[in-house]
């Protein structure tokens, strides 16, 4: 396992700058999650580390070596592709053994069998080992492609939304399993996901990409609680953070320049004895099973918060609400921190 460093890496495709001067250190043994909407450059970042793309500028180091000019095979990385790529002409067993049979590795047949058996067991695909790769369901294929990375002990694992095509139950199971494997092996992991639970529960560090640029990097808690911008704040949190004009709550003590406030559900206190409350009207109440969302209308703005599933509040009802320790942003969405609390 090893540390991975990107130093001001840029990759352009014609007019599009897919990765824009990204500097990022994935510490040895850490689990770094990249977040960002489609087209933010997450996949390209992984491909740059893997050596499938050449950087137009900047250097990439793995375990201290400058690998910028190395071919993929020499970089000692394993990658799970966003679009799974099992070899359709091979059985599941041969797919899993394929990386171990590389001329670079020269493992004995017994050793290969043992490793393949172990990984298949772990991913619950032992009974499918002799099937053709094309005879599997989507979820099984995805597990095999994760397995094809796990049979190796590379310097770094690169995973591009590996759990996205699985059903919820399997996703939860594999999330725990992957995290366990990573922790056990002390593996270095660079992981792309859209899933907030994956980001919050698995990551030791989260990097947020925006149009190819790394806009914030820190622990999941930091990124969630202390975002640098509206953009970063909206990456994490279900329901999304509410962004509203700052004058919505007249009682708030605004720092200079603040024109927007960000309110996560936990920043909104409904009813009770909140000081200086504002009147809100209850809109829809959505029962989503694991959470219950309540829409609130305040002076023409719409806010979403969470409530208890057996709430006795009714749509149309008026309730007092207050903002508790919200986030402040300027007109361009940049975070404004109170002087003194600046990190």
């Amino acid at each position, binding site marked *: 396992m090893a540390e991975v460093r990107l130093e001001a890496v840029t990759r352009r495709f014609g007019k599009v700058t897919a990765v824009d001067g990204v500097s990022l250190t994935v510490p040895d043994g850490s689990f770094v999650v990249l977040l960002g909407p489609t087209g933010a450059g997450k996949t390209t970042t992984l491909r740059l580390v*893997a*050596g*499938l793309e050449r950087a137009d500028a900047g250097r990439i180091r793995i375990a201290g070596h400058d690998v910028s000019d190395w*071919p*993929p*095979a020499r970089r000692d*990385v*394993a*990658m799970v*592709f966003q*679009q*799974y*790529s*099992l*070899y*359709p*002409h091979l059985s599941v067993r041969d797919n899993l053994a*394929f*990386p171990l049979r*590389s*001329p*670079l*590795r020269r493992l004995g047949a017994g050793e290969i069998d043992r490793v393949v058996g172990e990984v298949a067991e772990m991913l619950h695909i032992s009974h499918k080992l002799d099937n053709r*790769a*094309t005879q599997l369901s*989507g979820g099984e*294929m995805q597990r095999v492609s994760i397995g*094809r990375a796990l049979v*190796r002990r590379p310097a770094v694992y690169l995973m591009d939304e590996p759990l996205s095509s699985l059903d919820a139950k399997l996703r939860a199971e594999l999330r725990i399993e992957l995290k366990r494997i990573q922790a056990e092996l002390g593996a270095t992991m660079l992981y792309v996901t859209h899933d907030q639970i994956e980001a919050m529960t698995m990551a030791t560090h989260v990097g947020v990409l925006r149009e190819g640029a790394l806009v914030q990097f820190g622990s999941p808690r930091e990124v969630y609680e202390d975002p640098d911008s509206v953009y970063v704040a909206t990456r994490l949190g279900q329901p999304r953070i509410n962004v509203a004009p700052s004058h919505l709550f007249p009682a708030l003590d605004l720092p200079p320049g603040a024109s927007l406030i960000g309110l996560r559900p936990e920043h909104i206190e409904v009813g009770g004895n909140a000081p200086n409350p504002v009147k809100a009207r209850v809109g829809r109440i959505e029962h989503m099973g694991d959470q219950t969302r309540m829409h609130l209308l305040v002076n023409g703005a719409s806010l979403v918060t969470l409530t208890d599933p057996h709430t006795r509040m009714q749509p149309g009802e008026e309730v007092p609400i207050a903002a508790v320790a919200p986030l402040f942003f300027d007109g361009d969405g940049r975070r404004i921190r109170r002087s003194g609390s600046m990190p």
Partner: protein
Amino acid sequence: MSAYSITEPSRRQKWIAGTLVILYALITMAPLAWIFLTGFKSPPDSISYPPKVVFTPTLEGYVNLFTTRSRQTREYLDSLGPARTWYEEIVRKREMVIAGPSKFGERFKNSVIIGFGSTFLSVFLGTLAAYGFSRFKVPLKDDLMFFILSTRMMPPIAVAIPIFLMYRSLGLSDTHLGMILLYTAVNISLAVWLLKGFIDEIPIEYEEAALIDGYTRLQAFYKVVLPQAATGIASTAIFCLIFAWNEYAFALLLTSGTAQTAPPFIPTIIGEGGLDWPAVAAGATLFLLPVLVFTILLRKHLLRGITFGAVRK
């Protein structure tokens, strides 16, 4: 199963479709069957009118195909004593003796060398070129692909005279190498275009995965691309072989001895009083076999095309 299933045809539909298929098969097979049967007829039976469907089969056609014979007097034949082999006996009945083997074996061998040689070369070069065009940034790619296609825009025979003259001065006339190069030149554009289509269909992620897993590009090509292109390679090989195997005009023009293939040779098999139809039919029957066997051997790969694309792209 419901009576109105959309996926399962009704009995009546099956019956009609089956009848049509069998009728079509009969119509296309009839000439082949006729050639096959004629090969086992005696020369008089083969030209009798009305044509005979029931006849006494004989191997005379095959014996005549593989031998040259000379007519002898009764006395001379009697002086030879009894025939030692079954084929001598057949020939003696026509008051002839076997003078030696015919050229058919050699011509057939030429066909095999030239047909399979040019097929191998076309597919080999075609696969590499198609892979290059499919995967790499090639300057003027579209123009080059169009140029390759344009070599087939006129019938090859239109350039017969220049090729004849070139081959004469290069010493390629009537050589195996000359014919292999010629058929390869004609087939290569088809091979590149067909194979590029097939290779384009293979997602590039497969090779990228192999590169990351510790394989070189050449190893990835060999281990990942080739097996998945097997369908395309097999069908391309069949097309190339059929062209090279059946080609008549260039073979007639450019070969006469050492490198002559079977197509220009078969019609020259002359027997007593004109064409020896049973021998010609026997030659045609044997001539059909290699392509038939080749196609059957590759059938497995052609069928595999059906499962192609079962993996999400």
